[in-house]
């Protein structure tokens, strides 16, 4: 049964909400070159980004799904792999939770004139 937060109980209780993990992933996405939000705008930071990021917590492991657009001219799988790497690194570094997978769905291409 997936839970909304992950607990650590060594020296006390630490709860990490799923939304926090989504926000960290969104921040990593916003810093990855060539990654945009599905509406063609720069990937948002903060709560607005959560609709593009799904976080699952299963048995202490994290699984993330991100919906993105990729800038025209870039190699789509390369951008996606770079994003996966960055999200995994950032989430593991900031939460100490193991990231099982980062699935990336590329829903469209963004052209330079759209990207403001």
């Amino acid at each position: 049964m997936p839970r909304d937060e992950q607990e650590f109980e060594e020296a006390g209780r630490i709860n990490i909400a799923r939304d926090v993990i989504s926000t960290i992933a969104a921040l990593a996405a916003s810093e990855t070159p060539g990654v945009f939000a599905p509406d063609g705008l720069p990937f948002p930071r903060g709560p607005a980004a959560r609709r593009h990021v799904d976080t699952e917590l299963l048995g202490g492991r994290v699984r993330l799904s991100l919906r993105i657009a990729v800038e025209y001219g870039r190699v789509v799988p390369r951008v996606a792999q770079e994003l996966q790497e960055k999200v995994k690194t950032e989430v593991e570094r900031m939460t100490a939770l193991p990231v099982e997978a980062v699935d990336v769905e590329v829903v469209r291409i963004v052209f330079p004139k759209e990207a403001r």
Partner: protein
Amino acid sequence: MSFLLWVEALLLFLAAVLTGLGASGVASTVVLGSVPELWIRVIFGIFSAGFLAGSSLCLALWAGRIERHRPLRLPGPRGLVLITPQTVTQLAQTLLAQELEETPFRIRLRSRRDGLFIRVFLRLPEEARIPELAEHLQELLTAEVSQRTGLKVHEVEVVVHGTSRRV
């Protein structure tokens, strides 16, 4: 596909008219009043067949639509990379628009689990020769789409359905 839509529309329309006649009572008093019972059963059989065929076609069309919108999957070490057919179509359209400039064209994409089938419909640009143009577009799309998406392009079919000449 458009032929199937027409057949579906026609079948549903016929079934709806016949049902409407039955419901309004016109069929029973004017038409069916003197018709033997066997014929009435046949007519109701036609209603039923019309609705069944129409709804089956509808389901088949929706299944095809869902299949066309299903993202293509590229498994990787960190998770899946899913690329929607819309993304690939956008990419192919941009490449063709740069190549064909003002020549009108449209693209139809069929995706299978292991790759893509692209069909390009276009009007032959002025002074262009079909074999050279088709070969060039096939090479361009196969190379660029494969390189930029990591997906295998199995086939690029070029359909020339007219010429675009200035008069």
